[in-house]
């Protein structure tokens, strides 16, 4: 028996590893291809595409918490807003280098994630959801109150971002912003793929399914989840900073319940716990919203609602799950189901 185990390990393990690697590599290539295709297909809508990327970062960050840890949140925009305001305030005060601003946003988001996680992880289930709502409402209120720093409801304007690498301007046509955003998204996505397939990522998935089992394995649950909150905050903060840099304004909407709820809708729409679902959901939801509201600005809401209902009826596991079933047949993507 020992012998069998040895031989099988020798042959099978590298194969499995390679398959996982190659699948992720294909995924990343597809994302880059889609991004580049967007650049050439819609050269006139780059500002919209950049906004989708910023929101995609927010939805990715939410997937880390909801999809990988099973912590439902309707307040994720707190972290996005923290990044956006930190980058915005830094920019107004003379920090104009884009990469520095992104770093500031990520750190602020991570710090907000630490606080938010420390509060939210005290509760479970519905109570947790309500805590997340309360936190985002408080953050929104705080941003409104601190109008000396945030511009309050008028928004924080006057962000003059310097050129990227001292060369590429963030201009009207938005090529710089878009390509910068796309590179950020791809980089973050690759990092997150590493994170979720690391031992830590596995531990989180385990916690999502059964925290008691994880404790019985001798692992503390709270610090693991808190760590994921910090990572999630950094990702959301990056998205917020990207939004601030590319639009040069930060509004109260970036730290609102509405944005949080939209992010959750997009995530569930795309499918939880795969990272791909987060991207698919964001692109489909925002693209659909944009197209429908351009066709009929007066009654697009009905159609978006109908889309959500249709998705629940046709693909309860989200769109990425549906794609999985269609394309790969039986073979399912790794990761938890909702």
């Amino acid at each position, binding site marked *: 028996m020992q012998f069998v185990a040895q031989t099988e390990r020798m042959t099978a393990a590298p194969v499995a590893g390679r398959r996982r690697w190659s699948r992720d590599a294909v995924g990343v290539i597809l994302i880059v291809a889609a991004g580049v295709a967007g650049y050439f297909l819609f050269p006139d809508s780059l500002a919209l595409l950049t*906004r989708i990327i910023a929101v995609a970062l927010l939805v990715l960050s939410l997937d880390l918490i909801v999809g990988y840890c099973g912590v439902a949140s309707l307040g994720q925009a707190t972290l996005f807003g923290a990044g956006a305001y930190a980058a915005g305030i830094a920019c107004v005060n003379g920090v104009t280098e884009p990469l520095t601003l992104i770093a500031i946003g990520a750190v602020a988001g991570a710090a907000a994630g630490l606080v938010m996680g420390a509060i939210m992880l005290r509760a479970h289930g519905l109570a947790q959801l309500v805590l997340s709502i309360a936190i985002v409402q408080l953050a929104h209120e705080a941003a409104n109150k601190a109008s000396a720093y945030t511009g309050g409801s008028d928004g924080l304007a006057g962000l003059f971002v310097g050129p990227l690498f001292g060369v590429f301007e963030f201009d009207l*046509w938005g090529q710089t912003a878009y390509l910068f955003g796309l590179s950020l998204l791809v980089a973050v996505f690759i990092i997150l793929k590493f994170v979720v397939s690391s031992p830590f990522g596995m531990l989180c998935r385990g916690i999502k399914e059964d925290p008691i089992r994880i404790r019985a394995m001798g692992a503390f649950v709270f610090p693991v989840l808190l760590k994921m909150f910090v990572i999630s905050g950094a990702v959301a903060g990056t998205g917020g900073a990207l939004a601030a840099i590319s639009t040069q304004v930060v509004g109260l909407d*970036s730290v609102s319940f509405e944005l949080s709820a939209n992010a959750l809708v997009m995530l569930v729409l795309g499918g939880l716990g795969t990272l791909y679902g987060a991207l698919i959901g964001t692109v489909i939801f925002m693209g659909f919203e944009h197209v429908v509201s351009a066709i009929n600005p007066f009654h697009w809401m009905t159609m978006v609602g109908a889309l959500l209902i249709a998705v629940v009826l046709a693909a309860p596991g989200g769109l990425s799950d549906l794609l999985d079933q269609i394309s790969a047949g039986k073979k399912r993507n790794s990761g938890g189901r909702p």
Partner: protein
Amino acid sequence: MKATKTLLGVAIGALLMGSVSAMAETVKVGIIGPFSGPFALQGKNFQAGVEAYMALNGKSVEGNDIEVIYRDLPTANPAQARALAQELVVKDKVQYLGGVYFTPDAMAITPLLKQANTPLVIFNAATSAIMNTSPLVARTSFTTAQTTTPLGQVAFDDGVKMAITVVSDYGPGIDAENAFKKAFEAAGGEVVETIRMPMNTTDFSPIMQRVKDSGAGGLFAFLPSGPPTLGFVKAYNETGLKQGNIKFFAPGDLTQESDLPALGEAAEGLRTSFHYSVSHDSPENTKFVEAAGKAIGNPEQLSFPAVGAYDGMHLIYKMIEAADGKQDAQKAIDAVKGLSWTSPRGPVTIDPETRHITQNIYLREVAKGPDGKYYNKKIKTFPNQKDPGLATQ
């Protein structure tokens, strides 16, 4: 649907005009407004104003056909505002931008204007500071400080020596509080207390209790137009403040015409100051109300954003004329500096310095008309008011 109708109209117009000018160019105008969402009514008013202007003044300027493209921005969302403006300029190749209901959205668009070589005519967004962010912006609405300031003297003359201010806790609310306080104190009164209440307040009784306890003889209030105003006015009546002779003053956002059917009796006698009343008696306004009422479908829904849009289109037409259909933002904006004309709201001028509209502010009172409907009845005119918010900066 509406957009296609407009397109169709433009196409037919183009056919008819084909003989006049063989080299007619189509000038595109992008209008951003809240056409869906909680503020959809204001967006509808934008559209009604634009359509009314085009119905009365033709769909072309000196052989240049005008095509209007509407883009929906339901709530204050600067990122989306920028994306929409960028797309309108780059993809749809609009030469003029108009509309914009919320201040942060305007703030997100103005940095683009220079590069886009496109002027922006703001139909509503009412914070003074927007005008400083780009030399290519003009505004045909009002600022909160502009509509509020005359109330200070009015309140004092009405015998109010001590007043309390109650405003929604956001930019325009704070602007209103400051403007009233300044004007009222300049007139010799004293503001004994200032209350800022959260935007989502639904039950105003405790606030009214607070007003009562303050001992003030007058109440100045500012809330954004829409659902909360109803609760606020009702609470004012029901808690006995009305009977208790605490006088109520507010800018006209609180009694906009489209809210009056809902407010009804509760609003009767409320005095507000504003730049426009649908009931304004002038031939220009009669024409406007008829055309805009037709455009919006239900004339009861007509309100102040429509006149902002109407006059905004007037500016855009003038700009197109000056630039001769070419894209030249500086020439266009220079052409309207100092421009005076008679708007449905009364005589107006674009201040050459600030590019903000100088206009009459009217003191009105909600009264019941002979048809049984409530309207804002003009009782006093403060002519040629500039924006005091900008003057002080």
